[in-house]
């Protein structure tokens, strides 16, 4: 067989014009030390040299190359075409080498070919071997100047500039902004009118509309503090957490299902979503918020909340099927965690260093695998949310019932066995002749092929309970029924499941309980390397995280040295601990150390990144526009001193997000008009990066739906709990493959805020998707805003929108039954927080002479003004 493929290879090479011949003279000139060794040194020996012999292949000597590695000889002197070295570097066979995706030059490839064809003479230069080739995992020291990059320096406490115009002295944020504007020669817009401001504050902080009464009350309020009081009021609203929690759920790539083929439901994911909403409403200090999410199971004070918070590290998309046969999946999940911690918390694309050192930022592959080691002990668990006593009692009951079920199930099996044995041969007759012969042949006499066939069929053929029942004697049948009934009754005795939180802790993933599809194949995947161990450490002694390694080119099978936990060197000041073990010894304390490093005031990025995110959501653009990339490929900060000042100020104020909202919203910058045309400003700064006017912002997808519900008056303000499944059109459900969508009727029960709508990875909610819902599988940097006809079609024709338009009309008619002018005024007040202008009023009145009120309310829900914050 080997000969056949070999001949085929040769003939194809001739066709491709790659075969050689008559080039001996060229080949003779090739010298190993001069022509080949430099190539080996810069490429091959990194992985097949002194420090490392991947695939057990050592290319340091001619002898070892001839011997070859796992995949056979690497070198056949005299025949490049048969030599794997040549075939792989020439791309004639996979995997192409070198493995980093680079290619040797045509000259280098041709030199190797000539050298092999010339008999592969081996005359290593003095020093020889690969002593000069550093191993691929050798750490490149980070140059000292790398740390001088602004984002890797700890934020400095800057002094607030003194503006020339004394009016701007009052507010530190304005002082920085006005200084920049003065330098650019920009003339800022005046303050927005109070109606605009009250709507802006509501949309921004709660994602809902002010009612006409709330708007009126604000306008009537003569207090000089009315703005501050309004902000305090809105920050105290439970709707605040529903809006701002959602921003952080984007970062956490939160969803209620697994994704991938089965898209399994995550029945307890919502507890994490509620945790995030509550954290915002309680103004949980942001450092504590992060610590709970990274290491909620390792803190000094572990609470139910902190255990729920650890779901942050489980929010990635997950195959959830045959995990143990596919060990590479886990490395992808770890990569997702590193990407989310990196981009989401640190604003750095650390995951770029999975396969090689980062191309642009001073992040090494070592940094990556240190961070991976910090997380590597994680295992998925469902933390009981009941008291220990209750959960123990629950487990006891379940174990007891299982024990009582065992003999019943055993008897049932015995009872069925003779029937099964009679039926199976009949089943085999459905297979082709060769299968039947294979099964009939006694096991010892089967050919290897027959053995395979027989094993396949015998293992997978079964008879159904119905088929057995048809053959059963009346007494056996009666007994079977009795047993079934007894089993059913016992199953019913099982207590309802206790509440659990989807979370993580430390353990040994290799001994995790089998998930779906994990059962059948012993000796495969992670089970192959399973030695003695337990899933969760119970003592004695301290927990040890399973070993993790530097992975060459990110390939989980190409292990370099074992890694210790740690943090990206360029971001680390001093010598922070990399493990802070807890008293019980059940976890390693590595994640706790990571959490403390992330939230340390010495960390140059965490505070800057969150301050910048909050800024972005208020102003529509971050001081660093790339919210998740403060590295070299990210945008430069427009106001670097201000960013530093804010970061330091934020940390000094206890990492309080609400403090930050008050600070930013009390600035003149936040209160400027968006409606302001200034040709000179526009010419100098068309993007408005200096904030000379307030930037109008299209509402996020969820908020589009929420304000429609607010306008119609149908919003169900119930908070928290399991998600809702608003009705989807059957055509949409048709595209869904697996997982759940518990189609509910359109009505008040599902007219909850959008943050409570089920997030299905395999089927994004269409109304959200069309309005730029970020992909639910990756941590989101900044949402896209696109304007496309399908958005218009949705707002024009979707059943939900039309029904809400009708409810909106009903609401208006009820309040002003017979007065069309009043109806128009009210409809404007509800949806746009302002009365109509004379022209608008005239157009609307004229319209209503022929059209129904719902026609008008539907138009209002479609207006540009309705879906923009201004």
């Amino acid at each position, binding site marked *: 067989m080997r000969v056949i*493929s070999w001949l*085929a290879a040769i003939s194809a090479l001739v066709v491709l014009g790659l075969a050689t011949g008559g080039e001996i003279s060229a080949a003779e000139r090739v010298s190993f030390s001069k022509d080949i060794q430099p190539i080996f040194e810069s490429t091959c020996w990194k992985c097949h040299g002194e420090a490392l012999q991947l695939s057990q292949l050592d290319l340091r000597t001619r002898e070892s190359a001839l011997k070859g590695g796992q995949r056979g000889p690497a070198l056949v002197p005299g025949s490049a075409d048969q030599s794997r070295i040549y075939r792989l570097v020439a791309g*004639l*066979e*996979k995997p192409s080498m070198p493995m980093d995706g680079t290619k040797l030059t045509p000259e280098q490839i041709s030199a190797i070919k000539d050298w092999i064809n010339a008999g592969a003479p081996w005359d290593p230069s003095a020093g020889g071997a690969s002593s000069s080739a550093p191993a691929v995992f050798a750490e490149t020291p980070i140059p000292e100047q790398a740390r001088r990059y602004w984002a890797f320096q700890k934020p400095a406490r800057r002094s607030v500039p003194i503006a020339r115009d004394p009016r701007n002295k009052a507010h530190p944020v304005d002082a920085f902004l006005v200084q920049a504007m003065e330098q650019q020669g920009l003339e800022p817009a005046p303050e927005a009118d109070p109606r605009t401001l009250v709507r802006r504050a509501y949309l921004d902080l709660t994602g809902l509309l002010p009612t006409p009464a709330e708007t009126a009350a604000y306008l009537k309020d003569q207090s000089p503090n009315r703005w501050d009081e309004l902000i305090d009021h809105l920050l105290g609203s439970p709707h605040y957490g529903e809006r701002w929690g959602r921003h952080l759920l984007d970062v956490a790539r939160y969803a209620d299902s697994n994704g*991938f*083929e089965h*898209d399994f439901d995550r029945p307890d994911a919502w507890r994490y979503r509620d945790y995030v909403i509550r954290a915002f409403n309680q103004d949980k200090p942001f450092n504590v918020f992060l610590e709970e999410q990274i290491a909620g199971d390792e803190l000094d004070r572990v609470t139910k909340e902190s255990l729920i918070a650890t779901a942050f590290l489980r929010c990635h998309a997950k*195959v959830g099927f045959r995990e143990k046969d596919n060990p590479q999946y886990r490395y992808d999940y770890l990569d997702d965690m590193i990407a989310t911690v990196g981009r989401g918390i640190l604003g750095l*694309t650390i995951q*770029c260093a999975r396969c090689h050192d980062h191309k642009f930022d001073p992040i090494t592959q070592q940094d990556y695998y240190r961070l991976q080691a910090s997380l590597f002990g994680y295992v998925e668990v469902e933390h009981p949310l009941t008291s220990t006593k209750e959960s123990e009692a629950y487990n006891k009951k379940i174990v007891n019932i299982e024990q009582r079920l065992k003999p019943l199930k055993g008897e049932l099996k015995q009872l069925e066995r003779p029937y099964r044995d009679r039926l199976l041969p009949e089943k085999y007759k459905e*297979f082709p002749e060769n*299968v039947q012969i294979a099964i009939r042949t006694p096991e010892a006499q089967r050919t290897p*092929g027959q053995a*395979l*066939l027989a*094993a*396949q*069929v015998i293992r997978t053929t079964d008879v159904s309970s119905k088929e057995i029942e048809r053959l059963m004697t009346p007494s056996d049948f009666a007994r079977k029924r009795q047993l079934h009934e007894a089993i059913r009754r016992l199953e019913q005795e099982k207590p309802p499941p206790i509440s659990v939180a989807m979370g993580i802790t430390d353990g040994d993933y290799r001994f995790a309980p089998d998930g779906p599809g994990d059962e*059948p194949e012993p000796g495969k995947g992670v089970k192959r390397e399973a030695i003695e161990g337990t899933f969760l450490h119970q003592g004695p002694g301290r927990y040890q995280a399973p070993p993790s390694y530097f992975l060459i080119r990110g390939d989980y099978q190409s292990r370099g040295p074992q890694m210790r936990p740690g943090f990206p060197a360029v971001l680390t000041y001093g010598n922070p601990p990399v493990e802070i073990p807890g008293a019980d010894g059940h976890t390693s304390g590595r994640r706790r150390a990571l959490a403390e490093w992330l939230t340390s005031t010495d960390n140059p990025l965490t505070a800057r990144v969150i301050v910048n995110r909050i800024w972005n959501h208020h102003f529509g653009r971050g001081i660093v526009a*790339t919210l998740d*990339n403060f590295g070299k*490929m990210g945008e430069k900060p427009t106001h670097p001193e201000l960013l530093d000042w804010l970061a330091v100020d934020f940390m000094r104020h206890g990492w309080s997000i609400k403090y930050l909202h008050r600070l930013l919203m009390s600035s003149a910058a936040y209160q400027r008009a968006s*409606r302001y045309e200034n040709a000179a400003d*526009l010419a100098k700064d068309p993007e408005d990066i200096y904030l000379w006017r307030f930037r*109008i912002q299209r509402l996020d997808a969820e908020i589009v739906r929420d304000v429609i519900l607010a306008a119609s008056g149908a919003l169900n303000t119930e908070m928290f709990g399991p998600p809702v499944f608003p009705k989807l059109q059957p*055509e949409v459900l048709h*595209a869904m*493959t*697996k997982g759940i969508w518990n189609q509910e009727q359109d009505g008040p029960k599902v007219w909850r805020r959008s943050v409570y709508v089920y997030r299905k*990875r*395999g*089927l994004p909610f269409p109304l959200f998707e*069309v309005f*730029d819902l970020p*992909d*639910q*599988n*990756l941590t989101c*940097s900044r949402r896209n*805003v*696109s*304007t*496309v*006809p*399908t958005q*218009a*079609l949705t707002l*024009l*024709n979707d059943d939900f929108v*039309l029904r809400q338009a009708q409810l909106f009309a009903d609401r208006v008619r009820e309040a002003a039954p017979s007065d069309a002018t009043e109806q128009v005024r009210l409809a404007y007040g509800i949806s746009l927080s302002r009365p109509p202008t004379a*022209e*608008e009023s005239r*157009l609307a009145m004229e319209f209503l002479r022929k*059209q*129904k009120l719902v026609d008008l309310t539907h*138009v209002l829900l479609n*207006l*540009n*003004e309705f879906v923009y914050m201004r």
Partner: protein
Amino acid sequence: MRSLRSRRDFLFQAGGGLSGLALAWLLDQQGLLAADRAPASGACAANRSGPTPFTAKQTHFTPRATSVISLFMSGGVSHVDTFDPKPQLARYAGQPLTGKGEVIVRQGNPGPLMPSPFSFRKYGQSGMDIAEIFPQLAQHADDLALLRSAYGQSNDHVQAHYLLATGTVRMGFPSVGSWITYGLGTENQNLPAFVVIYDARGGPFGGPANWSAGFMPAAYQGTVFRASDNPIIDLKPPASVTLEEQRARLDLLAKLNELDLQKYPSSSELAARISSYELAYRMQGCAPEAVDVSRETEPTRKLYGLDNSTTEPFGRQCLMARRLVERGVRFVQVYHGGLGNQNTDTWDAHDDVKKNHTTHAAEVDRPIAGLLTDLKARGLFDSTLVVWHCEFGRMPISQRGVGRDHNPGAMSMWMAGARIKGGQAIGSSDEFGYKAEQQPVSVHDLHATILHLLGMDHTRLTYLYNGRQMRLTDVYGDPVPQITRS
């Protein structure tokens, strides 16, 4: 007509971006009334009005084709039973597969080598070997550039679908159609640039993530078309709203938005949103027309097999695809095989490869042959790239003596149209079809080739995300050179 005229007069007076709305309505009416008019003219003809995310863009070099019809056989076609004959399977039938390293199967344990239940014949001047279950498609052998050495990365349906759709087995990345519409825009803004037509039995493995825009703006995601007069979700108002009412609403909306725009004259975002309503309105008229196969002549309908219940569903999908391409749609993704019942409704032939592939080949053979013939007859063959592929090949060894398991190691695909060189088989798998052997073609190579044929260098089509210039082909891929060699 009177009301229309006065409306148009008003809109013309209102000026600017608004005139299009009224004009579109009038033209739509005329276009729709003149049912059998050539589709390239009339109201739904190419509309390049921009700028929007879809404004037609420059290619890197002269393209060979301007649009793509991608025919995806969901479930995994057995290459050794269709386009890649392996006589050695008969010779070694019943013996274990050895000498190839660990034999990795998706389900259970490996079986012995199994010959194809189908016979192969040579077709065309090129003498291409094709199995008997594709008698009509085989007549186009000289049009096909067959890739016999393609390979994937995953033996799981969904990850393998994502790999073909996006270039990675992970979720969250833009699909090929998204990249192409991002790179090229569209020739006709009255229709979506990237259209998906999936099997009436259900969506493909992995569902809508297959046509997701991933980290790109949602504008670039695929729009699902169904074979009805309401092909797009929410295209038309429900019965409770008459067209007259809708028109009245749109008129008022346009007027009020126009008044508002006067307050924000420098906002292109708000102006774009106004024109998106105009486009939506045109789409309401143009999309149903675009997929209305009843407008086709009887011979054309027959050509695609619409006269036969076996071939009708996929024939309809193919005919819709041709109509869309004819109207300037950039990328049409057609799926055969849907997750109603995985074993019977897709090519996933674990149970019985003969039965499964006989059924499914019969469903697609005539429609695909008809599509190729029709594209030629209409002069669209050279400007349209047709790609036929699936998520993985199948095992040369048997599953329970009759079925075949998944095999990402080797699969067959083909391309046609786009002025490629037909009648050639490129690369080969090993003697059993277990692994790609000569000139292995990765999915990145496939994607690079598709982009190349559309005039785009896959290393230059980039999208800045995550601090990196992302590519459909990541850091890999080379166009298959023989595809264009003449």
